[in-house]
């Protein structure tokens, strides 16, 4: 049995819209989502009454005690359909990590199966008032009893442990990670919608930043924001009649279950071993390999993920990503560099959770990147960790 995706290149992205990314938007998240969805539908050359499918991933990814309220701190597929006054044939949310790849898979499967013809896929991110990850818990039951009483809590320590494991094992320097931040922020600074528009970061600024959870500093983390993106998907046949050049979904993979661990415990070997299985299935699903990809947009919600994806995707040998980036391997302004953060990533846009990677694949492969347009035919959009996330392969051509 082949692992090739049965609907490879049969469903396409045909339009998009992206809100401005802000620390705190003036409009409520629901209103921002409605506006963005309407603009995406118009961009695709469609009318709202033609949309018969709605898909999202509604996770509000905070470790804090913030309330989750539909239309306020998250926006579900049904909330969007209801408030657009549409009664869709299909509405679903992806429940899991690797939200954009997961949601894309749900949307593509629905279209390939005939459950919907035109799907709006959105992601609405919210930055609540107060500390994003601060939690006032006074007792820890369930899974957290094994970690919170000793102060192991929240995603900064979560990523600090495998990153330090990497640093110690392979001798990775802060100067190497500075190259990642400089690249992400330089590209983010070029995007009018980015929170970091016009604000690149220098290596010196990165190196001067104090640690929060060694070896993680503030700049290694994407900044929480209010922001919404929406994409329109349809079948390759229907896409041919729409205004923009379609970008086809060639294949996808979500991570296999990882080794059972303590909450938020992500040892480096788990990330790499399970991550390699994720990418093996990704290539099998899409029918291409790493050498054919010319736009590998890696996830960078925390900067060490850039190393982990570069290595699990097979773009550089294990343990070598830090040298690779230090040697200009991800300098997207150089013909010798791989454009892995050309879309700015999360570090260069704000916490848009896999949207920047997907959007860069869409814009470049559809020929809609304007002054930033580069030659690219096959893209990968990654999200979260290779062992606890997912990725999608996009193509400008059907193959």
């Amino acid at each position: 049995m082949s692992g090739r995706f049965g609907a490879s290149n049969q469903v396409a992205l045909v339009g998009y819209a992206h809100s401005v990314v802000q620390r705190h938007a003036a409009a409520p998240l629901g209103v921002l989502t409605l506006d963005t969805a309407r603009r995406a539908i118009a961009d695709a050359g469609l009318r709202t009454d033609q949309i018969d499918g709605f898909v999202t991933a509604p996770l509000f990814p905070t470790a804090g005690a913030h309330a989750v309220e539909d239309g306020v701190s998250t926006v579900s597929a049904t909330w969007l359909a209801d408030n657009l006054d549409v009664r869709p044939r299909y509405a679903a949310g992806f429940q899991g990590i690797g939200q954009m790849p997961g949601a894309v898979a749900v949307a593509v499967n629905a279209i390939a199966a005939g459950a919907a013809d035109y799907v709006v896929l959105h992601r609405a991110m919210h930055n609540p008032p107060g500390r994003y990850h601060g939690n006032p818990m006074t007792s820890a039951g369930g899974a957290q009893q094994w970690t919170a009483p000793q102060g192991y809590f929240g995603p900064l320590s979560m990523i600090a442990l495998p990153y330090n494991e990497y640093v110690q094992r392979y001798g990775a320097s802060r100067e190497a990670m500075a190259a990642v931040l400089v690249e992400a922020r330089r590209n983010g600074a070029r995007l009018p919608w980015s929170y970091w528009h016009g604000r690149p970061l220098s290596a010196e600024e990165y190196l001067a930043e104090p640690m929060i959870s060694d070896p993680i500093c503030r700049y290694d983390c994407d900044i929480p924001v209010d922001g919404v993106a929406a994409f329109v998907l349809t079948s390759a046949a229907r896409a041919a009649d729409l205004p923009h050049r379609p970008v086809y979904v060639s294949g996808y993979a979500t991570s296999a279950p990882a080794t059972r661990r303590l909450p938020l415990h992500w040892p480096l070997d788990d990330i790499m071993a399970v991550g390699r299985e994720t990418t093996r299935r990704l290539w099998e699903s899409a029918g291409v390999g790493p050498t054919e990809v010319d736009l590998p947009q890696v996830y960078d919600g925390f900067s060490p993920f850039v190393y982990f994806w570069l290595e699990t995707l097979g773009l550089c040998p294990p343990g070598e990503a830090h040298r690779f980036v230090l040697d200009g391997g991800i300098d997207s302004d150089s013909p010798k560099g791989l454009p892995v953060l050309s879309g700015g990533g999360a570090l260069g846009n704000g916490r848009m959770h896999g949207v920047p990677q997907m959007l860069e694949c869409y814009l470049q492969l559809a020929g809609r990147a304007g002054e930033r347009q580069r030659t690219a035919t096959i893209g990968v959009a990654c999200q979260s960790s290779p062992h606890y996330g997912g990725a999608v392969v996009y193509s400008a051509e059907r193959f």
Partner: protein
Amino acid sequence: MSTPRPLPVPDEVSAPYWAAAAQHTLVIARCSRCASFVLPPGQTCPHCHSVDPRFRFEPVSGTGTVRSWTVVRQAFLPGFDAEVPFVLVDVELTEQSELRMIGRLLDGPAAALRLGDRVSVAFEDVAPGVSIPAFTLGAPA
């Protein structure tokens, strides 16, 4: 008085763990079917996949090696503001390959650490009858 740290809420499965910790003994759940140590104990055994693992808590040496660490300089939970900066170590316990536990390293943030350093369990008495497993560098005292 400073804000207390979050206290563990023992449940049906974990009660023996916290009772032993209160006596400064580290016990780890062991599957009755395949004898593997499991942390944390869930509904099934991750090693033999038994749905009826009947975990029993057994005392372990409390020794292990440092697989990674971080220095926490900003607290996200109550009760730790006065503790920062503090070190958390990711420890592989001696009893079983990849049996890993995370705890505070009580030697302080200035302690020089390397991968593979030996550590031993120690306990922090955080409330009457409540002790939290942690680690110190070196062999058991």
